[in-house]
């Protein structure tokens, strides 16, 4: 299959996957260092000319995402799906799309890698990276990023479906017919 076709299909799947996501903040709760304001003051360079900030409340934010089945503390943690995309990452992904439309895959990759650093646990970012690599003609990287995205998709059926279909197309383009069929089966089973 022509790689432009895959890229277009990939884009379609991913837009499906992206539909309805984007939260203000990604993920669950963030750890806030105890008294981080004062503890960092004894450090050497660079010079600190500002006065210490008023003590900030030590809070635990919970995201707007539905609570996952979180086992009580002290036992190993896990969750059922990756992070939702924060708004900022979505902005960068849209920028990347414009680069892709202009055929500037390196420009797109730059923006997507920024998005990846912001949302390293969001599966969509990796699928989008895979799409950019398809367009660049690097199907090996495209397949790996698809697999990485899938490993974070968890119970998110929409992302799972997009990922498996993209993987099927990439594998078929690489001549891996059996692998492609397998991936399609996975998508169909969802």
């Amino acid at each position, binding site marked *: 299959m022509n790689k432009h076709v895959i890229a277009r299909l990939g884009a379609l799947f991913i837009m499906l996957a992206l539909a309805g996501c984007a939260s203000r903040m*990604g*993920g669950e709760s963030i750890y806030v260092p105890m008294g981080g304001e004062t503890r960092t003051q004894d450090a050497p360079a660079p010079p600190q000319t500002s006065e210490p900030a008023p003590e900030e409340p030590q809070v635990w934010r919970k995201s707007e995402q539905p609570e996952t089945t979180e086992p009580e503390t002290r036992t190993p943690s896990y969750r059922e799906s990756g992070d939702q995309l924060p708004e900022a990452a979505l902005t960068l992904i849209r920028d990347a799309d414009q680069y892709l439309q202009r055929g500037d895959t390196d420009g797109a990759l*730059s923006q997507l890698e920024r998005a990846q650093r912001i949302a390293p646990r969001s599966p969509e970012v990796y699928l989008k990276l895979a799409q950019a690599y398809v367009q660049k003609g690097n199907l090996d990287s495209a397949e790996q990023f698809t697999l990485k995205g899938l490993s974070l998709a968890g119970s998110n059926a929409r992302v799972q479906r997009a990922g498996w279909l993209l993987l099927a197309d990439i594998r078929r383009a690489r001549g891996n017919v059996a692998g492609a069929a397998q991936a399609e089966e996975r998508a169909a089973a969802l």
Partner: protein
Amino acid sequence: MGRSLLRILFRVGLLATFLLAGWVVYLDAQVTDRFEGRRFEVPSRVYARPLELYDGASVSAAGLTRELELAGYRRGSGNRPGYYQRNGQRFVIHTRGFLFPDGEEPARQLSLRVSGDQVSGFSVVSGPSSAIVRLEPARIGGIYPAHREDRVLVQLSDVPQPLIDGLLAVEDQNFHEHIGIAPLSIARAFVANIKAGRIVQGGSTLTQQLVKNFFLTRDQTLVRKANEALMSLLLEFHYSKDDILETYLNEVYLGQAGNRSINGFGLASQFYFGERLKNLDLHQMALLVGMVKGPSYYNPRRHPERAMARRNLVLKEMAEAGLLDARQADQAQNRALDISAQPSYNDNLYPAYIDLVRRHLARDYRDEDLRSEGLRIFTTLDPAIQQASETAVRDTLPKLVGSEHLEGALVVTGKDSGEVLALVGGRDPRFAGFNRALDARRPIGSLVKPFVYLTALKQPERYTLITPLQDKGFVLEFDDGRRWQPSNYDEEERGEVPLHRALSHSLNLPTVRVGLDVGIPAVQDTLRAFGAPTPIPDYPSVLLGSLSLTPVEVAQIYQGLATSGFNTPLRSIREVTDANNQPLSRYSLKVEQVADNGAVHLVQYAMQEAMREGTGRSAYNWLPEQLSLAGKTGTTDDGRDAWFAGFSGDLLAVAWVGRDDNRGTALTGASGALPVWSEMMARVPQYGFSPVVPDDVQYHWVNVGKQALTEEHCPDARFMPFIIGSEPEDIYDCGGAVGREIRSWFEGLFNE
């Protein structure tokens, strides 16, 4: 007669003119050669990663302030580029704009709040609107031309105006008018010197001083003076005033440290104040200007009174020249000298990190290009995490047993990006010496165990987390008659232990048994797939970590354990551009699946258990219980090496503590390296580790001792992951009966 005299005179004159012309050509070649060599080599600039600001970004208010100051921002009203305003949690930042390799980030005025270490209410007040904005990256160092390694080169545009004004006012008032020499000032100096009966004034222009600096002989003969004057004229003929001034600023002699001379204002600023030139205050600039006249006579460390008097004279002259008003001059005169206690010799804030960057670059660039082509190198260094890491090493090592001989190293990477965020190569992070993070290759001890168990768990039909293992001593006899008798760290034997506990409590005997059962070659394959450099030893002691790696190499192989089985090559550089922002290299994020996600998930369970119940649990003396972490301790014989490698949701970090002479210590991974690791983690806002359950994994309540499924409310019930199909078939209900599985109520809860 008259005619022949004239002819002789003419001939002599002609000859003299020829000779002079030849001499001028010779001098010209000399001086331009020297000048070109100085002028047109531009060092590479090394940048930290830019801070990304957006709603939800993790950054503390102190961290943001520090980041702004590192990038040269000043506190003020926030409505001029390069200034910021802070009001409690609220920040207004006016960015300067920056040309990144992927395009221009325009100057903007931003408004945001930082609370609970997160950005909120982010908005662009003026400038092109965007949900995410990058600050200019902080410059963290330079890579200098080899013969000018002893310079901190400054560009004219980076030199504060008061310093230039002061320098010209004191040393060469007519710099912008004269042609290289100033006969008038020479005459004036001559008169002044005769009046005083000694030398009180020098008539040299800056250009002459620069020439003098190029050819360092101190004799004051007439011929030399003439040469100097000629060369000065030639320099002025060839080059612009700005070129000459910039070169002067980088060449002028400003002091001596042993047999090393301090040349240039950039290095002098580091040497005397430990500060970048552009960060100096007026009184500090005045001191440097004053020292041009006699760096050793006015040495502020040796002769503070002389230096102070000279500085105040400079300030007075600046005021008289109308460069300062009386109040400014007065205030500056009342300041102390503010000399730094320790001389520093370069502007590389993070020498160990720059060392890593140089080694990465050495694969693709010639050394002389790095040093002279003015490349822009965009690294992945995170200044906040670097600072947390340096503090953790510096503050923790002195508290450990036997601390005076201990050294340490710490590597922090982005868990899913493979970016090296921070690197500490020893207990003095400013010292550019032996870089232990890159060069201390030590046996990794129990850090190898997750790879042994991963190799086993890849075979779910044979191994699960609850597979009972023999914790009993045994002897291996080799063909050549040698014997090997491994034992546990505590010398105890526990009989039968489940696999997850053998890993979380780092028991040696079951590990060796499992390793021998799956085969050493299979374990080697796993290690190689995860990026361990070859060769990997093939004797059984490799199962207990006789393999030697550097801290950075350990970080590399743990990358695959910390993610869902994806190896992510470590990177310290994102991009390199030439001086005109033309991209030269991009180092992209790469991922490669090297292990089944499901098997890795099981290992991650046991590594989390190590933090909760096993060898890593003392981490929670520093860290809150709510932060989930996974990790592994490592200790080698006689405590020679104390290791800890572990990860949160965002960060992967590897700490090593030991002695340079490889002698034993009283430390273990938990008592030596884990405190360093935890101290760093405690200082960085981050998400906990909570891996997504893979498709082929399902959690079940099990009774480990009975090897059976059970129910949550039953005693000794544990909720544990199994690769689907490998969960126990027996059921243990609390009544004590064990039966066949009936479809439990929670099945189907997780896979719709």
